[in-house]
């Protein structure tokens, strides 16, 4: 009814570490930033880049981007957002002292030029196809120059352009956001108030929604989701996320330096079974590009070595000199990211081709240590993915990639990645990445398994929310209750 305050209470399992969009890394912080700040461009629900603070943009050559800003956008403190703030924000991200994780996304920026109050030109030192993707990151949000100068950093305050404003923050308990009446999209948001409640346990989040003390929560734990699905009084919203569960090899170690061995292993993996057992069916098998990025990802039946074929796998093994299989170790950890269940299923599946996988279940800190030191035969991971193939695959699998801890080096792959990076139009890039996906499936340095669903559970009254694929709460702007 009109006049009544519309409050949405959302349960989160972790407290925000801070609110400065350029600094934060934690998932929980990003979820607040989603609502408090805007970027030049953003993702829509299909992970496509769409305008946000930039009304439009031009790409005269593959190293130059010119943004036309929205007019009349106000920061929460009432000042207007201008090209100066954009320049300041990007420079702040680039400044090593800020230690922004966003820096690596846009480090190719050579210069930023304010062309007018509402126009900015950015020149890159090298072509980077995923540049816009980088700008769509919360870490490249536009902040108020004045506010930064006033507060030093923005960890505890929020002076953004977002649809909601920070009202109250009681650490480890709750955070209250209220509607920004000056929000630039007229009529939005519908909600008057959003309250974040920190409830660490997944089961309690569900309990809260059942009890009506919460309106909505993101739930990662598959069994809890399963329970939620049984309850007809609540709504469960699911969609493949952009994170990718992988089973990767240290390709410098024997026998994984032999592509036939990797292919054989890939042929022995049944992704559907893994999804059924380890994720209770709540994930989507994927290839090298997260299945949710529909504009890029190839269907799995187009990818070689993705359909189990044990005879062929055994033949490949024999060819590689392991007619009786071999023994190796899978590093895994007893946490969601560590994928213990997945490792157990993989171990079980590999028995079919006579390969004996031993699990090295290590504690999370040790797991990271092994990851950093690249000390593993193979490892089950949950990789932070991206809807943008350059962003995800370049760092993951290019021989110079920052997180290529598979130590994979392949001329074809490098060539394709480099090629995809300098092109700017979708039409030009698409065939390159199609080929890359097939090459990667062929060479199998990593066995891409599945993308876990992103799941939001909510009461039936909550309407209009859309999932993006990485947990973003952006669409709360359009949500009604």
């Amino acid at each position: 009814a009109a006049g009544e305050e519309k409050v949405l209470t959302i349960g989160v399992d972790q407290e925000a570490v801070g609110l400065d969009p350029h600094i934060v890394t934690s998932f929980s912080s990003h979820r607040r930033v989603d609502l408090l700040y805007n970027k030049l461009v953003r993702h829509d629900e299909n992970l496509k880049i769409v305008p946000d603070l930039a009304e439009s943009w031009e790409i005269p050559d593959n190293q130059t981007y010119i943004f036309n800003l929205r007019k009349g956008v106000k920061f929460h403190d009432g000042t207007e957002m201008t090209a100066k703030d954009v320049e300041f924000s990007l420079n702040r991200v680039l400044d090593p002292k800020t230690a922004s994780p966003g820096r690596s996304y846009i480090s190719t920026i050579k210069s930023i030029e304010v062309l007018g109050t509402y126009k900015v030109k950015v020149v890159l030192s090298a072509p980077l196809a995923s540049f816009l993707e980088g700008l769509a990151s919360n870490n490249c949000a536009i902040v108020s120059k004045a506010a930064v100068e006033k507060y030093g950093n923005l960890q505890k305050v929020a002076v953004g352009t977002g649809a909601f404003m920070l009202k109250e923050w009681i650490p480890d308990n709750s955070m209250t956001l209220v509607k920004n009446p000056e929000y630039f999209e007229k009529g939005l948001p519908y909600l008057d108030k959003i309250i974040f409640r920190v409830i660490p346990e997944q089961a309690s989040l569900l309990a809260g929604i059942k009890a009506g003390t919460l309106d909505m929560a993101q739930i990662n734990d598959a069994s809890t989701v399963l329970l939620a699905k049984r309850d007809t009084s609540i709504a469960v919203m699911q969609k493949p996320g952009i994170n990718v569960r992988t089973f990767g090899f240290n390709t410098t170690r024997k026998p994984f330096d032999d592509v036939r061995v990797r292919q054989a292993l890939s042929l022995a993996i049944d992704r559907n079974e893994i999804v059924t057992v380890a994720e209770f069916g709540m994930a989507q098998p994927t290839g090298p590009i997260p299945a949710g990025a529909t504009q890029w990802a190839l269907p799995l039946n187009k990818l070689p070595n993705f359909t189990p074929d044990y005879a062929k796998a055994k033949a490949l093994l024999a060819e590689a000199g392991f007619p009786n299989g071999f023994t190796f170790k899978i590093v895994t950890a007893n946490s969601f990211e560590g994928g213990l269940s997945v490792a157990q299923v993989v171990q079980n599946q590999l028995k079919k081709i006579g390969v004996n996988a031993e699990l090295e279940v290590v504690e999370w800190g040790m797991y990271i240590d092994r990851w950093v030191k690249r000390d593993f035969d193979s490892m089950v991971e949950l990789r932070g993915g991206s809807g943008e193939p350059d962003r995800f695959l370049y760092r993951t699998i290019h021989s110079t990639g920052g997180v290529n801890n598979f130590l994979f080096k392949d001329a074809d792959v490098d060539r394709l990645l480099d090629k995809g990076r300098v092109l700017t139009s979708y039409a030009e890039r698409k065939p390159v990445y199609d080929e890359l996906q097939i090459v990667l499936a062929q060479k199998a340095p990593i066995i891409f398994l599945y993308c876990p669903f992103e799941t939001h559970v909510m009461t039936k009254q909550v309407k209009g929310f859309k999932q993006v694929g990485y947990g973003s709460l952006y669409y709360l702007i359009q949500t009604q209750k």
Partner: protein
Amino acid sequence: MSRLLKNPIALVGLIIILLYVLITAVSQFWLPFDPLQMDVAHIMEPPSFKTGHLFGTDEFGRDILTRIMKGAGVSLLIAISATLIGATIGTFMGVWAGFLGGAWDHWIMRLADVLFSFPSLLLAIFVMAILGEKTYNVIIAISIVYIPQFARVSRGAVLAIKNNEFVRAAFSSGADRRFVLSRHLLPNIMMPVIVQSSLSLSVAILLESALSFLGLGVQPPNPSWGNMLSGARKVMLLAPWTALYPGLAIMGLVLGFNLLGDGLRDILDPRLRNIK
């Protein structure tokens, strides 16, 4: 031994323990199912005679009864080895401290005090984090928890015996400390140490399962009762039997050791013994 058999509590405890030992022995040769083999078609099936899964199946479709049987050996191995190691080192320390007295005593017991003020589970977690999750590290972690406990018990026992006149008699016949230690003190503190051991065995089972429950103990897919429960946690509300039976298995064995320990304590209690 005959006194042990006359004590109903100890006897029941002993029978329970022997039962578990028997199960462990059987599990070496025969198991109803393969404890590691997953069966995707039969995930989380409730207990049933028809399917042969008497205790149901877990989230990977593995037979729970089989895994419990397989886990019995691990639990027994860990409990027994950890207690043995902890008892040996702790008793040595305690005897050393109690016998030598003075500064040795002071510092050894201070160290024990310090270790004591760590909650035992936390201490075990620390050790596991340092050593890494290996079955033998679980043994080490638990024995480290036990060292101060045994040190205390044995020190107390030594102090009680040290001033007995037979110790003086041995010295006055020309015995040296080593002789007195090995001939008089050690044999005489064995009983309290044994009682403590049987109670420690029970706590070791609980500690192992708590560690595995927290993901720091025995590594999956090898079954231990603790990691079975840990795995069951995710699906507990969907399939309660996955949590029920491993827990009952733990409880049974722990109860066995507790009964034995309590019974032994009775047997050793001079109040109950001296009635002629």
